[in-house]
């Protein structure tokens, strides 16, 4: 495994941040970078874990959760951002709080060139959709950025993208 040895256990810190924020629904399309957080969420009976068939479902899920008085977050890989674009109009038009945690591909030590086109436009696409960007590159900065994103989203009913860089997550090991 070539991934750097994590001195800070940032996936567990993200889970703790979600718990402190009383997030009760987590929609996700799986990504290796989110694997530990997904495991923690699935093991938590106080959180509805909702595996999605496509990321845009999670935008609508979060809107419904807020209508019903619960906070939701959406976990996805960078490739899923493109799947969300029209559905983001729901959050923007109605000012639904929406926190997306996005694990990056296609930007650092990427073996698969098919990841680059979407990965390279994640931030501009998110900015065009009125999302505040919080980008984490080092393990020790994840928790603080996540806390700020939570405040931005749920404190003021806004959209934020917590971008978890490929450098943070570590190189994917390709073996045949």
């Amino acid at each position, binding site marked *: 495994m070539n991934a750097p040895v994590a001195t800070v256990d940032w996936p567990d810190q993200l889970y703790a941040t979600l718990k402190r924020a009383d997030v009760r629904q987590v929609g996700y399309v799986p990504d290796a970078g989110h694997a530990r957080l997904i495991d923690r969420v699935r093991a938590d009976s106080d959180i509805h874990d909702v595996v999605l068939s496509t990321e845009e479902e999670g935008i*609508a899920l979060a809107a*419904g*959760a807020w*209508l*019903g008085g619960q906070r*939701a977050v959406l976990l996805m890989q960078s490739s899923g951002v493109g799947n969300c674009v029209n559905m983001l109009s*729901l959050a923007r*038009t*109605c*000012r639904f709080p929406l926190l997306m945690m996005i694990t990056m591909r296609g930007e650092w030590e990427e073996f698969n060139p098919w990841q680059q086109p979407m990965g390279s436009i994640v931030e501009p696409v998110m900015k065009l959709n009125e999302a505040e960007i919080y980008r984490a590159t080092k393990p020790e900065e994840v928790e603080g950025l996540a806390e700020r994103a939570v405040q931005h989203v749920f404190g003021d009913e806004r959209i934020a993208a917590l971008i978890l860089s490929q450098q943070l997550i570590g190189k994917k090991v390709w073996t045949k």
Partner: protein
Amino acid sequence: MTAQTTAGPDGKLDRRAAMAALLADRGDDLVAIPGLGSTCWDLAAAGDNDRNFYLWGAMGGAAMVGLGLALAQPERRVLVVTGDGEMLMGMGSLATIGIKRPANLAVVVFDNGHYGETGMQPSHTNGGRVDLVAVAKGCGIETALDVRDEAGLAGLVERLKTLHDRGSGVGPLFARLAISAAEAPRVLPERDGVVLKNRFRAAIGLKA
């Protein structure tokens, strides 16, 4: 339920009469989400209510808004009523709902086989070529009803009354209604999304 002119000119169910039947005596515990387009106007025509959240966009998202709401409010009955085109765009959400299985969620599709808002182009369900009931069943939603007449509609109305009483282990409800392709006059509800959101939350006792 009263059997009041629920048939359209082609013998299929009239969309306005069907919506009125579904919402009659709705009670305080029923919340309603329409898909964009005709079902949104149908819901408005059945009588405005703060516990309606009208979608004017977000095509393909109606059932998922319903899922998030159903999970957050397990004591309320959540009724999503959408069209065949909107459901086709969000067909994967039936798989997602089939996995989560909230017993208090009903997804009802008014299937006229056409895209009504854009000039009545035929949809995939036209002529029964794509069967949304079979799709729902294939997604693990065991209670998937094919409603073709007034008797079927009356049965659906009865099932909706006890949506939240079916107990754990019983999944969500899906119904496809064979709806007349006759168009009804537009009845336009509030379209400010922030107003709709806040009035909905206030109506169910949350901070707006």
